[in-house]
């Protein structure tokens, strides 16, 4: 008897909850006329950024590709005349990407970043394959000041040995001075 009463009560409470929702505001938005708010650190379309000097940040270290759980990033390292590493080509297959953000977490140079732009659907899946020229933007993205090569020990154009952050001048091995 008690069981039956409890069941009826449960039904009534459910009905009441549904009726209440009839008068509350809808959560759905009229997309695309009405755009939802995406916070700056929302994880969507991936870009490759540049450092404050306007040079490519990506050094083709391959850590993003290794971290990617769906293996949708491939690239090839190249090196310019002054020793700076960069990606000869850089490809993301967005039709596989799950926007997990592990590539951004793995990136030691803040080069690869996820942006709030999620509107990159295509009718043709082939168009979801982005090459380096599609990914590279002209700004530094979320991290305005970071410049990897200012911290690294490798010398590149515009930064000789000993000119990086907290580096001494190169040693003259022929000197016996302490």
């Amino acid at each position, binding site marked *: 008897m008690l069981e039956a009463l409890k069941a009826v009560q449960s039904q009534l409470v459910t009905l009441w909850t549904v009726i209440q929702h009839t008068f509350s505001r809808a959560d759905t938005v009229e997309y695309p006329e009405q755009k939802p708010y995406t916070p700056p650190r929302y994880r969507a379309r991936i870009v490759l950024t540049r450092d404050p000097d306007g040079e490519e940040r990506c050094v083709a270290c*391959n850590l993003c590709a*290794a971290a*990617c759980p769906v293996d*949708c990033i491939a690239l090839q390292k190249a090196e310019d005349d002054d020793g700076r590493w960069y990606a000869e080509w850089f490809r993301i297959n967005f039709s596989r990407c799950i926007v997990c953000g592990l590539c951004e977490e793995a990136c030691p*140079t803040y080069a690869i970043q996820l942006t709030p732009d999620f509107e990159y659907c295509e009718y043709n899946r082939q168009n979801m394959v982005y090459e380096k020229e599609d990914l590279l933007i002209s700004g530094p993205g979320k991290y305005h000041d970071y410049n990897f090569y200012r911290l690294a*020990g490798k010398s590149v154009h515009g930064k000789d040995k000993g000119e990086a952050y907290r580096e001494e001048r190169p*040693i003259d*091995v022929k*000197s016996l001075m302490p």
Partner: protein
Amino acid sequence: MTKIIVDDKAYEVPAGNNLLHACLSLGLDLPYFCWHPCLGSVGACRQCAVKQYQDENDSRGRIVMACMTPASEGARISVADPQARDFRAGIIELLMTNHPHDCPVCEEGGECHLQDMTEMSGHTFRRYEQTKRTHRNQYLGPFINHEMNRCIACYRCVRYYQDYAGGSDLQMLGAHHHVYFGRHCDGTLENPFSGNLVEVCPTGVFTDKTFSQDYTRKWDLQCAPSICQHCAVGCNTSPGERYGRLKRIVNRYHNDVNGYFLCDRGRFGYGFVNGDQRLHQVMRRQGGSEETTGQAAQVATAAAGHRALAELLARSDSAVIGSPRTSLENNFALLTAARQHFCGGFSAAEQQIMQTAVTNYRQPDIGIPSPADIETADAILILGEDILNTAPVLALRVRQAVRNRARDLAAAAGIPAWQDAAVQELAQQSRNPLIQLTVDNTDLDAIAAINRQLAPADIARLGFAIAHGINSEAPAPNDLTAAETELADRVCALLNHANRPLVITGTALLSTAVLEAAANIAKSLSRKLDAPCPLHQCLAECNSLGAAMLAADSATLEQTLEGVEDGAIKRLLVLENDLYRRCDSRRLDAALDRLDELIVIDHQWTATAAKADWVLPAATFAESEGTLVNSEARAQRFFAVFPGVADVRAGWQWLTAANPGAWAAIDAVTADRASAETVAVEQVATEKATVGKVAVGKVAVGKVAAGNVTIDAVTKACAASQPLLAQIVAAAPPAEARSQGRQVPRMPHRYSGRTAIRAHINVSEPKQTPDPMSALGFTMEGDPTHLPPALRPSTWAPGWNSNQSIHKFQQEVNGELAGGPSGVRLLDEPAAAAAATWFTEIPPAFRAAGDKLQPVPLYHIFGSEELSQRAEPIQARRPRDYIALHPDDAARLQVCSSDGISFSAAGLEFCLGVRITAALPAGVIGLPMGIGGLTPAALATPLTVTKAFDWQPPPSPGDRAVIASDLAANGGAAP
């Protein structure tokens, strides 16, 4: 065995080693830097600290360096002790204070011993906030990059380079924390084993420049167990591929063959696989065209190529020519295709000397030393061979044998062999005697007790005299000069005094008499020792011995050419052999022009391919599987690293497909098909306590198409056809072998980019290429660690990403790999009918033949070998074109070292610069093989030489030539 107690657990370890050696052999993780299994201990880095206790009552203990403390009976240590762990964390923090923030732009990243040890020691956060010391880098040549900031001053590089490899141009410079490891000035590192610095250096100071130019992380490289193709030593290598290009070669440990080290030719000579001379498509010559360049050929379909091949093989007037530089399977498929007109690919001189070599190895009183056995000798006689340039890794082994005098002295003085500094201090310059009788100076001269440069005939005569001196039953040469007699007596005294003498000779001089003299010496020594005396014969190409054993009585090239000249042979099929390297050019031109059809199967565009009507692209070692027999008669299997593209097929695939009738009749093939499901291969695999089993798999990996012959069937048929080769099947597990029920993965388990690599071509990924004919798959799924050594694609263990992880796969550090030796020795059983008789044909003493000069071959590690000389970095190290003359001959010809001379040899005209060297005997002319177009074919007859008045020195010096990117790296200035 000794009992030691590590963290309250008792272990049995081999006696006489140090605690680090013991811990690593037990599979325990203990970080280290300055210790290397081949270099011993110096206690420089302080990283391997452990706590040692007096006895079970000692609770305080004291910190000791594991590498400097003997593993004595009952030693009680703790690796996990908090104080020891803190000490190690402190040391790594100190070592890292000056280390740059470079890992993302460092070639070592991902396979870095420093990264691994930092992780292992728990140093995860940088507290040091002061400035870092910096260094300028040096240009070190076309092989090695230098990035000195990354150095942690472990001293391994100079200890390897100077002590182990005998180099003198890499030093420790400077003082205190300014120490610098480099050359006195920018320039090429000259030692031919400099590439090993890449693996010896625990950080990224020395990195592979050729790899850096087309770089991929280790975790992205698809690898396979492979065998070096650039000489007959048969070093085990692990080549890596990505995006369809072979990216690099690293060492794959084999304790009997190459140990931890490769030569630079083997490491940097892989460029021919990706080179612009590489053939990928079937080509046929345009009708009637006289042009013989690549442009004259037009691309045809693979099916047309198959038809042409089948037609040629079906005719009775066709002959086929095999090759000593390709696998046994390829040669055997060719032999099966045309048994009547089969030529093994050797010239008459080569055929004769190779058969002598096989006969020697089958003598009951001659033992065949493996390269590792060479290190145990206490006196070595090298007869005629410049081993540094023809079998480089043997020269490294000989160097250790000479140094190992120090170990004997240390043993007598009670110093353990691993106490490197003490042993060297004790030994000073004491060396085991090395005796060299060669035609020219060699790089081993500096450590040799006796060097003498002689003409090949005189080397052989002296060899016979030495054999007679050791055992008077051996035939003696007549009319030796007093100097020769005295020299022979000195050599005999040294060899008689030795307990473990060893003889090395080789086929490089193409002198059968030298080989016979070496055999006589070994025979007389074996009578003295009352045991077979080790004799190692260096051979010319990676499968010279295999080809010689397969086709002992086959026709020589000269006989085949005679057949063409009589008109008996109208069609010719040449497999991976450039005939212009072995035959007189003019004769060959005429013979090839007489042919109705010439088909060449090769992976490179050669002079022979340029004459062909059809060129069928063959797979290189990197795209095919096969068996090679090295100079100690060890059959070893190499596996495809990546699938071939376009029309590329292995030679045996072309040949079996063109000749299905012959193959259907071979029992081994039908048996192989029937047994695929029933063969249970049980191979004890690997790692320490865990014993993996390789058994027949359940997972389907694609089917071999009906009618197709498998590589294993070819191997089995080859083994069945020739009793000497019966064991080759055991060189590696068969295609049905599985690890944990799956194929062995060629890709590391962290391989990245699978869904993006081909996405630009088509976003729908194709399935991975199946490889049903192999125990390895083009996949990352499977077990990468529990494998028999012959199937391990690369070396990796959890927490040990660098090649140093090899100790996880050894039964004991420096010992044999767990899972037993890979490869199988074929000639350990002497021939049943072989009688212990002497060679008696002693050549007459060398006399200069009037005006004519006797050609002798000189070899260069960079440039003499056919395939590696196509690699760009090897070309950069090639010596400039020259010929070598004795000063007397130069005076007679009125030439000096800035002049050129001209001569005609092997049907070609040569005009080359003169190098005058007093080391060369008078009356001979030294021809550098592979340099300036000179080939072994030029050695056939004495040469008439004249001064070339119009000779101009070549514009750019070949010796120190640099490749474009080096110029860029060096600020545009040539070093």
